[in-house]
Structure formats: structure tokens, C-alpha cells
């Protein structure tokens, strides 16, 4: 009886040790998986990841607001945007689009995608203000603000390990894009990140040669808008996703003391592209007597729609004299 009992005890010992070893192995693997997820989430997205996620997010944003597809105006916004983006020094291609909504806001997404709304463009006064707004969004991308928030969220939620170390596709990509756009449009950007974007945005626009106060001037204008149901609708998104305007304006005022005041404002060029003149001539080709340099000369093609001249090649500052030749 002694022999079998000793053997039994030994076998029991083996079983217990094996169980313990197996449990230890499971825990260690689980911890290793967590550690890897955190390590992956703390790494910046690769260019391929950022591009894929950014493009999918752009598609989602377009789905919400739709695009304002005016080739000349889109080209103009891209020229201004690239003028400031090239001062950030980050080697990434920026793509600027216009969203077809009266809402006044601008949105940046990973991968260099930046959108400004039709409503914002309608209320900017000059090119330096546009440059200031776009430079602020460039700074968000340059500093990877949204990406960092998404990665932090992933660390807080170990269940979400997707896109940690590979380029997401399909449903995973769609889910990520949805999360990013929802976050962009519903959550307030942290004060720290907003301040950083203001700081570097002013730097980029000033280095590009613009009046550094463009963003501040636009924010000041927004504070002066009377409260009406329509202004609430136009500015509601801005209010819910950005820190209070007076705080930002005060910070910008302090910042601007360190910048030159002789930068370009370019109100006329902005008006050329964005604020149309009051043409009422009928028929033929409109020719501006005061040429706008960026339009490539003083002759502007247009068509007559319902009795008014609609230009195809640019816009003219208010007060520009126009000659109309009959169509041949």
C-alpha cells in the first residue's frame, strides 16, 4: 500500500505543478499581449496607416457634410493651405477640401486632410484669416493631436487592439474612421492641444508671410456675432468642440506681441476667389479692367445664368469695372 500511495502523491504533484505552470503561462501571455498593445499604441502611426485612416475619415466627413465642389475655390484653398503647411516642416502631402454647409468650422484629420466649410469661407475677411485658420489645422496634424487621442483611448480600452500594428482595412477601417470623425465633431479639443495648435498655427502663417493676427481676427469676429437661432446653428459646432473663444483670443493677443505686424492680409485676392462681385451684365465674355494676378490675366470667361454673369475663371473684387463683349 505504501508503494502505490507514494506514486500517487508524486503523480498528484506533477498534475498540480503542471496546472500552475499552465496558468502562469496563460497570465504571462495575457500580460505580454497587453504590453504589446500598449507599446504599439504608443508608437506613431506609420505613413501608410495614417494615410489609410485619414482617407477613410475624410470619406466619412464628406458623408456627413458633402463637398462643395468648386474647382477654382478648392484650388485657391489648397494654395493658401500649402503656403502655410510648407512652414511646418513635416514631410506629408496636405489635401484641403471645402464642406458644403453653412456651419462655420474647420476640421483636420490624420493623413493631412483638412476641411473648411463654405460657411467659414463666407465669413473670413481676407487671405490672412484663411491662412490663420488653415495653419491652426495644419498644426493639429503636425502635432498628431487626434492620433494621440485615439492611441490614448486604445490604451484605456485593451479590448480595442485593432490597427495597432497593421494598416486597417474593411470594417475595422470604417469603424476607426467613424470613431475619429465622431470624436472630431462631438468632443471638445483639450485646451492644451488647442493652445499648441494656436501657437504653431500663428508661427506657420507668419513664416509664410501672412499677417500673424489672421486667426485672432477671425475669432474676434465670431465673438461679435449676435445670438440668433441661425447663428446658434452656424456656430454651435465650433462652441462644442473648441475651448471658449475669449480665452483663446487672450492667449493669442499675448502671443502676437512677439510677431511682426507687417504680414500680408491679401483682402483683394481673397475677394477675387471667394466673394463675388455684383455683375449684372448679360451676354458674352466679362473682362476685368483691374487684373487680379492670380487669375492669370485680366480676361475672365463667364456664362450668363438667369440674367447674371457667372465667372468660370475667378472672382473680382467689389467695384472692379467690367467690359462685356458679345459672344462670337
Amino acid at each position, binding site marked *: 500500500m*505504501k*508503494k502505490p500511495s*507514494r*506514486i500517487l502523491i508524486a503523480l498528484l*504533484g506533477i498534475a498540480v505543478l*503542471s496546472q*500552475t*505552470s*499552465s496558468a502562469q503561462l496563460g497570465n*504571462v*501571455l495575457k500580460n505580454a499581449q497587453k504590453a*504589446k498593445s500598449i507599446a*504599439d499604441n504608443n508608437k506613431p502611426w506609420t505613413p501608410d496607416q495614417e494615410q489609410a485612416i485619414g*482617407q*477613410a475619415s475624410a470619406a466619412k466627413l*464628406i*458623408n*456627413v*457634410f458633402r*463637398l*462643395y465642389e*468648386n474647382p477654382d475655390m478648392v484650388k485657391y484653398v*489648397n494654395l493658401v493651405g500649402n*503656403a502655410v503647411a*510648407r*512652414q511646418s516642416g*513635416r514631410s506629408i*502631402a496636405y*489635401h484641403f477640401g471645402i464642406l*458644403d454647409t*453653412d456651419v*462655420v468650422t474647420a476640421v483636420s484629420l490624420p*493623413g493631412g486632410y483638412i476641411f473648411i466649410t*463654405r460657411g467659414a469661407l*463666407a*465669413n473670413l475677411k481676407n*487671405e490672412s484669416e484663411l491662412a490663420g485658420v488653415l495653419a491652426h489645422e495644419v498644426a493639429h496634424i503636425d502635432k498628431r493631436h487626434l492620433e494621440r487621442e485615439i492611441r490614448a483611448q486604445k490604451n484605456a480600452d485593451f479590448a480595442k487592439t485593432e490597427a495597432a500594428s*497593421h494598416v*486597417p482595412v*474593411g*470594417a*475595422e477601417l*470604417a469603424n476607426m474612421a467613424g470613431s475619429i470623425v465622431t470624436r472630431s465633431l*462631438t468632443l471638445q479639443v483639450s485646451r492644451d492641444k488647442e493652445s499648441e495648435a494656436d501657437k504653431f498655427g500663428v508661427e506657420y502663417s507668419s*513664416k509664410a*508671410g501672412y499677417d500673424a493676427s489672421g486667426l485672432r481676427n477671425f475669432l474676434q469676429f465670431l465673438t461679435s*456675432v449676435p445670438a440668433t*437661432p441661425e*447663428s446658434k*446653428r*452656424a456656430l454651435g*459646432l465650433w462652441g*462644442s468642440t473648441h475651448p471658449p473663444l475669449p480665452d483663446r483670443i487672450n492667449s493669442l493677443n499675448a502671443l502676437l506681441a512677439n510677431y511682426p505686424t507687417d504680414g*500680408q492680409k491679401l483682402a483683394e*485676392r481673397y475677394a477675387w476667389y471667394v466673394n*463675388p462681385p*455684383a455683375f449684372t451684365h448679360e451676354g458674352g465674355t466679362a473682362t476685368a479692367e483691374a487684373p487680379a494676378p*492670380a487669375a492669370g490675366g485680366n480676361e475672365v470667361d463667364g456664362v450668363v*445664368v438667369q440674367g447674371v454673369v457667372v465667372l468660370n475663371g475667378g*472672382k473680382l473684387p467689389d467695384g472692379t469695372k467690367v467690359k462685356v463683349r458679345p459672344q462670337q
Partner: protein
Amino acid sequence: MKGQVSLGALLFASVLAGSGYTLSLSLQQQQQNNNSGQQGQQGQQSQQGKKSQQGGNQQQGNQQNSNPSQQGNQPGQQQNNGDKPTPLFGGSIGLKSSRQTKDSATLGFNGVDPNGQVQKAMLSASVSPADAMKAQQLAQTTVAPADLTQFLQDGGLNPNAAAQKP
């Protein structure tokens, strides 16, 4: 013999336990060192079987036409719907309205509710193939270097770019 049997069993048990621990350590190290490959491949493989969410439910923006004011401004250059130009701004909200016309078919606060908040239905809607195509086209939007140079020169802006970061 008795001692040999029990000693052998214990030795075997300790070898089993030891090898398991060694294995767990090496796996942990390997997982921590493995910076992308294996998990990425697994993730991609798992995604290949999943059906894409894209396509299908194309959401139209919630168009709400604003009352055009009479400021005498002109319609824009955009001609989205046939030959009709697309005005830039349709609201009369105390903000400057740069353009008001009767052609208000695409005017409005697309995407937001009366409080200016994005409609939840829009956020949960699937992206249409057309939206994906537009995003792809946007990704291919580039500014020709010559155009940018001319633009900077015309505006008296800085022709020099910042040094690129590593």
C-alpha cells in the same frame, strides 16, 4: 526502487514546470520584441473575412434651405446642378453672407441640427462608394509647384519652405 520512482516523478514534474516557465518567458520577450509583423498579419487575415461596412446606405445631407436675403451679391461659379451656380453661403445669421440667390438648392446647414450639433444619424451612417471616391480624389489633389511658386510671388509671400523634419 521506491525512492527512485518518486524521485523520478518529482524530477519530471519539475522539468515540466520549469520548461513551461521558460517557454512563457521566451514568448513574452518575443511578443514584446515583435514590433509589427505577426500581429499585423493576424489582424489582416481576420479582417479579410469580414464584410466591409462601406457601400449601400448612401446618406443624403439634411438640406434645409435658408431664406435668401437680398444683398445684391452674385451667384458663384460652381455649377453643381446642371447649369445652376452653387451659392457660397445661404444663411442670414448676423454673419456676413457673401452670396444670396434664388438658387438655394444646395444651401443650408447640411449635417447639423438646430443647435448646430452633428446629427447622430449622420455619424452612424455608412459611407457611400461615392463618398469614398470623393475622398480618394481629394487624396490625389495636389498643388503644382509652379502654381504655388507663382501664387507666393503674387502675394508677396515667403518663397522658402521650412527645413523638413526627420
